[in-house]
């Protein structure tokens, strides 16, 4: 029985016990993707929090430290990171509100949960893109 896929190897558990089929077996429902993305964006925002602290301490320390941050965040890689941060925040904010609505007791019907998951993906991208575009306009306006 030891050749059964997913059987729990040489641990203390018995061989041949069926594991609940999950990540690699089922087609991913959108609600599951939304849930995983909520965690992933949460981890990304934890990293973004470190960047936020860097930005604040650089600003507090003076023009030299601030310019290092401004130069690194102003190039293409910095802008990609900033967009990723913006989208993560947009997604986590909108999906967090979806979770709070669930906590109050609404939106649990399957079609509703699927619809709100799709809406969160669409509107988080629109929100992040809109805010990023405004940021680029502010930057262009100041440098002209």
């Amino acid at each position, binding site marked *: 029985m030891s050749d059964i896929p997913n059987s729990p190897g040489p641990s203390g558990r018995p061989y041949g016990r069926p594991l609940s089929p999950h990540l690699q077996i089922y087609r991913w429902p959108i609600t599951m993707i939304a849930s995983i993305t909520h965690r992933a964006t*949460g981890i990304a925002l*934890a990293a973004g*929090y470190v960047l936020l602290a860097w930005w604040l301490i650089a*600003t507090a320390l*003076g023009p030299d430290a601030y310019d290092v941050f401004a130069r690194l965040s102003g190039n293409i890689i910095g802008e990609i990171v900033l967009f990723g941060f913006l989208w993560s925040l947009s997604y986590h*904010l909108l999906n*967090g509100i979806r979770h709070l609505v669930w906590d109050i007791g609404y939106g649990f019907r399957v079609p509703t949960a699927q619809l709100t998951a799709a809406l969160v993906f669409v509107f988080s991208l629109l929100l992040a893109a809109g805010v990023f575009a405004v940021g680029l306009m*502010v*930057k262009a306006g100041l440098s002209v």
Partner: protein
Amino acid sequence: MTQPRIRTPLGKIEGLGSARAGTHHFWALRVSSVALIPLSIWFVASALAYVGAEQGAVAAYFAEPINAVLMFLFIVACAYHTSLGLQTIIEDYFHQESLKITLLILNRFACWIVATVAGYALIRMAFGVH
């Protein structure tokens, strides 16, 4: 109910469970998330207005009392919410006890160290130390 009832009446009304914490973690995560809705919108709007700005302009913004207070609340709420959220993830995916406890402690340390660095920077700007 053929099983004998093991849970005592006192345990039932306390509602604290075996970890003695009850729903505190769940509730704290929700309360901090509610606080972060307006605070994060305010923060993004503030940062947006200062894209490409000079250091002095940003420092002056955080020297304003209302901005210093809001930013301080944002930093604290972020640290609390982040530490609770990462704690959940660590508890879900790390099952070796020594590794799990080490990561849980490091998570708390890291979140509050970052918050303290950010708070220190903010206090310097709020009191105009340059």
